[in-house]
């Protein structure tokens, strides 16, 4: 579902890390590890098509991307955000379906509250609902544990395990180890900086 072949991301024409080669199949949960500044975020952004400076080849099936920024419009409610996200991909989500998903992530009571009144952790839960509603098989997540409380982290682990169990793929850059059953690791090794 995701294939990397000698992929090197570059910024300002400098390679960030050693070339990466990996084939990720359905059901894989991949931890993307590396020190700060190694380029994990840039790697995920490249696979998501946001970052265009790279050498090598990559291939990725239908995906959703969750970056450092939450990706929700703070002036809209969670429900509106989910509906809008669906229409971006040409899908129309049933109201009931959206409510159910918000219930699953524990945000049902706040479904009609503008996101600016929600805490970071709460917004991250809404983002999880967004992932679940989309039909994308590949989840590219950058530091998914950010801002989540204990319960939120448990929820995240559940959700990830479920997704991989159904044959989906997770690629997550994280400093906190993923507590999901079977894990594969992708190590990002920063390249030596030129003098």
């Amino acid at each position, binding site marked *: 579902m995701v294939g990397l072949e000698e992929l090197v991301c570059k910024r300002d024409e400098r390679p960030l890390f050693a070339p990466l080669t990996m084939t990720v199949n359905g059901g894989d949960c991949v931890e993307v590890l590396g020190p700060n500044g190694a380029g994990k975020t840039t790697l995920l952004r490249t696979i998501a098509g*946001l970052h*265009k400076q790279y050498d090598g080849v990559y291939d990725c099936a239908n*995906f*959703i*991307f969750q970056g450092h920024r*939450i990706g929700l*419009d703070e002036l809209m409610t969670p429900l*509106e955000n989910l509906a*809008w996200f669906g229409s971006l*991909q040409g899908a129309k989500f049933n109201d009931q379906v959206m409510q159910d998903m918000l219930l699953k992530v524990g945000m049902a009571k706040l479904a009609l509250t503008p996101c600016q009144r929600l805490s970071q952790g709460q917004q991250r839960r809404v983002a999880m609902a967004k992932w679940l509603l989309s039909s994308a098989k590949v989840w590219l997540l950058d530091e998914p544990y950010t801002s989540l409380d204990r319960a939120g982290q448990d929820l995240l682990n559940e959700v990830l395990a479920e997704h991989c169990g159904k044959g989906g793929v997770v690629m997550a850059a994280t400093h906190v180890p993923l507590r999901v059953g079977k894990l594969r690791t992708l190590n990002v090794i920063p390249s030596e900086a030129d003098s």
Partner: protein
Amino acid sequence: MFAPLFARELRVLLRNRGAVFNPMAFMFLAVMLFAVGSPLTDNSRAQFGGAILWIIVLLTNMLSLDSLFRRDYDNGVLEQVISTAAVPFVAVLSRMLVQWIGTGLLMTLLAPLLCLFLGLPNQAIPITMLALLLGTPALSLLGAVGAAITVGFSRGGILLGLLVLPMFLPVLIFGASAISQAVAGEGSSAPLYWLAFISMLALTIGPFATTAGLRISLQMQ
């Protein structure tokens, strides 16, 4: 796909009243500055009223454009649009259209007031409204390109002006001319046709260039 995206933009516009209100307030403030600073006699109104109106319109548009993509850039919505939308172009276009509704269209509707405060005769009002209606889309469409390229800069405002104002010049020329001709009682439709033409041209290149600019800016994050 366009309809729900457009509806969302409208909804956000109505909730983000400051983004619409502030530029409009600036517009009337600028009108007042001109009226007080350079008292217009009957003769000079014919010559300068149209030009002053359009200059104020240009500057107000610039203010409004500065924040066009900034919120979405900062909160991560923009990267969602570009990475996972089926057709990002449509989302960007709906944003640009709604920006025009909040500025150009609104200015067209407020034109009678503008003419009143600038001392332009009543006979000039219909032409002024038509000129604004035909010319302001070009401003929104071309200005969005500058806004897209500069959204990643923290102090992008002045740079935005430097980039887009030269491209606004033709709109100023034809728009001001349309009004001054109307004031003088001559009915020439040539400037209006030109405004329409420029807006059409802007429509063909604006949205594409804006999407390209946004892709470039997203890599700066």
